[in-house]
């Protein structure tokens, strides 16, 4: 089932690869943002089915974005972190912010859409 995913990352290369992985491989509709503020604006404009969110970004980072979205009432908006940290403690910290999942960079582009779908229990 085709979904709309907002990908937020300050690294344009990663943004491009993730876009191809979800749009061309996964068949979803993709929107992008390069920081938290842009992401908030994008969500306010049109609510996506999921947000794939980087952690450290300029202007407004990942955790700040999650808090802002929840504050604005997007309580059940599906958010999945995409972190460069392999530390389990960091993963736990991110999960505790109340998100639906945490994925690790580097990710496998050919299966990213599957991973996301599994995490969010999307039916194919």
């Amino acid at each position, binding site marked *: 089932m085709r979904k709309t995913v907002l990908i937020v990352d300050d*690294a344009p*290369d*990663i943004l491009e*690869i*993730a876009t*191809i*992985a979800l749009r*061309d*491989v996964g068949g979803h509709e993709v929107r992008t943002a390069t920081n938290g503020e842009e992401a908030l604006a994008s969500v306010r404009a049109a609510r996506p089915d999921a947000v794939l969110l980087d952690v450290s970004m300029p202007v407004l980072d990942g955790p700040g974005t999650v808090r802002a979205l929840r504050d604005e009432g997007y309580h059940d908006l599906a958010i999945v972190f995409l972190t*460069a*940290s*392999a530390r*389990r*403690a960091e993963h736990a910290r991110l999960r505790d912010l109340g998100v639906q999942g945490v994925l690790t*960079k*580097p*990710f*496998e*582009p*050919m299966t990213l859409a599957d991973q996301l779908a599994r995490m969010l229990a999307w039916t194919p």
Partner: protein
Amino acid sequence: MIEAPVPERESERLTALRALAILDTEPEVRFDRIADLATNVFGVPVALVSLVDEKRQWFKSCVGMDLAETDRSISFSGHAVAADQVLVVPDALDDERFTDNPLVTGPPGIRFYAGAPVHAPGSGLPIGSLCIIDRVPRRLTERERTILVELAALVEAEFAITEERRGLWLYEAVLRAATGHCVFATDASGSIVIFNAGAERLLGWRADEVVRKATPALFLDREELGGALDRAVGMDPVDVVREVVGEGVPHRLHFVTRDGARVPVSVTFTVNKDRHGRAVGLIGIATDISDQVATEERLASNERLFRTILKHITDGVVVIDREGTIGYASSAALVLVGVSAAREALGRSIFDFLHPDDIPEALGALERQRNRTGEGDPLYVRVVRADGGERDTEAVAYTLLDDPAVQGIVLTIRDITEQRALERMKNQFISAVSHELRTPLTSIKGSLGLIVGGVAGELPEQAAHLVEVAARNSDVLMQLVNDILDIERLDADAMILDVTDTPVDEIVRQAVDAAAGMAIDRDVEIETRGIDGAVLRVDGFRIGQALTNLIGNAVKFSPAGGVVRVEEEVRPDAVTISVSDAGPGIPPDMQESIFERFEQVRGLNDVMGGGTGLGLPIAKGIVEAHGGTIMVESELGAGSRFIIRLPREA
């Protein structure tokens, strides 16, 4: 016949006689001359020097009679001794004391006897007599009596000489025996008169080369005594001694031997005085103290070395007693705690210098250290400096409480503040680098993954192969980044273990799953045996990581179609998980080093490809962080078996 009564002080008299040590000695001319003189002066046939001991009279000299001794009971001299006065018997046959005396009735047929008592030197007790005997009766004029007493006095004078001489013999014997001591004596002019065997041995000169031919200046060290000895030329030698070294007290000097060697000696000079108190010479007694000096020098040298080392090593050295009171602190230790003088630390408790939070641990360490000998485990404590600053230190204690010279615990304290700061910086740096590496790697891996996945369309064969090579190597690079992070955490003891009750089968399943893809690629089968749900208190993720590394290696080194066997064995105290392969095996000389980072079995990795060289070190670090052990059994050509052993109550 009437026997002579027992004299007064008989036992003392006998002692004095024996002390003279003249009984049963050879005849001597000096006594025979006196007896001869007596026979001539008095015109008698017999004269004797008779000594009266307990049972007999024994003749030191016997002129005109062929007898060595007679029984005391029949002796005439016994009477002279008992009375301690001149005894004159004009006619023995007229004297009831002697009428039936065998010496009168039989040979030598005594009729006349006159004896003057002779006395022992010193005590003056009568010990015998000088007597004259005739075979016809006669009288003794007053003048003859006087002569007899005078002759007795001559005998006594000879006794005195005997005694004096024996004293000299004794001294000579002592001098001879004292070979370990150099003894010499001079006369008043300084000329050597005595030079004993010890002196010969020490100085190399023979007595006959120096006695009356040299003065002690022969072997005194001119350089050492310097001008004093020159000033002493022509001086009274007694004054020389007083001037140069002093009298009667030991001095440390050097004597110069015949070979020119300088020997350290302890020497005492004494001024030898005659009975009138006049100085008649010098006596010197010296002992070779080479060994002592060598020992002292060695000790002093050790001491200097010890002090120099203590002064220059950067680690602080502190000696404390059982309670922690400081008895010694090296300068580096003082610098560490920030005090300028030893007195600010000595006598104080070591705990005064520690961070309050670290004191309980330090107290425990002191308690352990007092109850052991030798070196203890390192203790990491913070020292609070006099200026309030804190330093991280590593202290190693060495118990020497039983050592009489130390009687304390020696602490070596190293300031590791900079080292710690550097470690923290390094860890932060590595974390940052690793994070920064992930971002471009994510792009590279992602791009290559998409191309390999065909998203960018079909590639020419060669391009497809090259992209695959790049993709595989980006995987290795990624693994390297992860492994380096892990090894750094293990090194810094910063790997946080999330310990929970974990079933072994779960750990094994995850590890096998992780390696399954590679196993399929390489046509290797992974077989599990005896795996059960035995529960271990471990960090399942980390143990799984260690096991994954082992299984990954086993798969990598297995021949195509080979089997990797993962087995579990539960023992009362531990669980072992082993991973066996049928690979080429590990040479014996590498079986230890493969657990060191970046050590891979020579030649193999090039063939098998792909490996960070950190898999085994990480596995080892993880297992050891759980209190477990990891080991390998391997034979070249017969495969390898890696065994993880984890205690059940970690």
